[in-house]
């Protein structure tokens, strides 16, 4: 089958532009699917509707967390914080111990406990004793780390 050159080039020209658009459509399709997967499965809200939230911490000073001040961090019945990867809230900072502290909910109240951290935990300015739970009320200020703290939270209602 022979074609005139200009006809052939005309076809190629259309094919070239069409290819850019096809690539674009493919891209949009992939990205859309990515976003759909994120909003249905990955987020903290989706998928886990059965679990009831029992309280939250308001971020005052985010430190190493990728959160803004004012962000609400949902608390679980047992929430651990520290540098180690197994903690509920992982705080990657050299001044935070690998298992720094624990917040638990029992007897209708929040309890704060230091797990023997090097740079201490403070509740309203008072040092939290190691291995002994102290009750915490909404509005209490929770500080982790030395001096004025690496991370600061406020107990929410």
């Amino acid at each position, binding site marked *: 089958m022979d074609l005139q050159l200009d006809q052939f080039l005309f076809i190629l020209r259309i094919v070239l532009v069409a290819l850019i658009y096809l*690539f674009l459509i493919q891209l949009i399709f992939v990205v859309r699917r990515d976003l759909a997967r994120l909003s249905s499965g990955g987020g903290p809200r989706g998928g886990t509707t059965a679990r009831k939230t029992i309280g939250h911490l308001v971020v005052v000073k985010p430190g190493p967390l990728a959160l803004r001040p004012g962000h609400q961090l949902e608390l679980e019945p047992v929430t651990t914080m520290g540098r180690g990867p197994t903690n509920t809230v992982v705080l990657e900072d050299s001044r935070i111990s690998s298992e720094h502290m624990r917040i638990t909910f029992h007897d209708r109240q929040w309890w704060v406990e230091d797990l023997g951290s090097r740079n201490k935990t403070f509740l309203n300015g008072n040092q939290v004793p190691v291995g002994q739970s102290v009750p915490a009320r909404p509005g209490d200020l929770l500080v982790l780390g030395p001096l004025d703290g690496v991370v600061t939270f406020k107990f929410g209602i």
Partner: protein
Amino acid sequence: MVESRRQYRWREIQLLLLPSLFILIGVAQLVLVENSAQRVSLGNLPTVDSLLPALGVIGVLVATHIALCILLPTADQVLLPIVAFLSSLGVLMAVRLGPKIPPPTGPVDELGTKQLVWLLAGLFLCLLTVVATRKGTLWIRRYKYTFAVFGIVLVGASLVRVLTSHINFDSPTHDELKILPGISFQPSELLKICLVIFFAAYLSENREILGEKGPKLGFIPVPPLKQFGPLMLMLGVGLIFFLGLRELGLALLILGIFLSMMYMGSGRMLYVGWGLGLFAAGALIGYRLFSYARDRVSILTVDCNSHDPKVVPIIQGKAYQICQGLIAISTGGVFGTGLGLGDPTNVPEVQTDYVFAAISEEFGLLGVMALLAVYIMLIHRGFHIAARAKTPFDQLLAGGLTSIFALQTMIILAGNLKMFPLTGIPLPFITYGGSSLIANFIIVGLLLRISATESN
């Protein structure tokens, strides 16, 4: 949640298919136009030899894909295909424009091959970046001052060279640093990355203070000076260097990066307001100081269709490039003349400053719209990676690096369309040139690493 089927990057290879086909057909068309045989049959279809640039690009991309499967299987799979498309369009345009560049600088027959070599070097450095950050981006954050000093030393070297060799203060120069005979490098490309690293590290460590309410000067809130000082110092030094090098476009780019990163880090319009104020002041100083800057602004008001005897010498002289660029763009119309069938080499420096005009002449409005959409996808993907990054430093780094792409595209396109003074900023991945391609691929490497360590 790492799924087992994410071990092989199927989506990436699928997405690489169309860009590969695109450059193959593009180069084939160029060969056909060149040979201009009257009839096309199975006998005189392009041979493998002439398709070499396209096959080279495809080979390099597949090799990178395989390397990423081994090095970083969980990294973002959309980023590489997007930049693959853009840089294969870059190689295609270099192949097309090289042999047609008029005598003073051209014809450069091997321009496409050169660009392919740069692409190879770029992808290699991209993988090298991925390997260098295999333990995370923490060390980059720790060495923030080292990066800042390194960038400034690089530009300082070329500043010294310019100041000792040029006496003419009214012409724009290009900061080139000769490494080896025949190979020169633009250190400012690396300075951009160094500055983004420094800004990201500094802002992520001080963002609480920057987010708070600072002191006030009367009614106007002022940024806290103690935390702001080092940043302003860095910015000032960067800008002074560029005023010395007379690359006002780069100064603008750095200021834009600084503003968007300040906003990303603090979330406050205050800094944007102050930055814009400083920019206005800087622009005024630049306008007063450099006659070439005044020229470029005054060219914006020139009517390229004018037959006024006062204006014609300007169109033939200072505004020649910009008017030829506009003519090239308008020749393309909606559907374009077809690849290899237009005449974009009338525009001086078409392979660097005006590659966009060449693309819009040959692919038309339809092609250019699609190209812009691909750029938007690139920027979307970059910010997507930034939003999902784990640490504030990674977030700011990814956001800042992405804004480099966004701002560069915007500045050069506005320049080509005569909406903004023309500057020597390259169009990311497409403009012919090694330094910018390599720097862009280092950025891609960093983004890939950040996307692999993202949360969830």
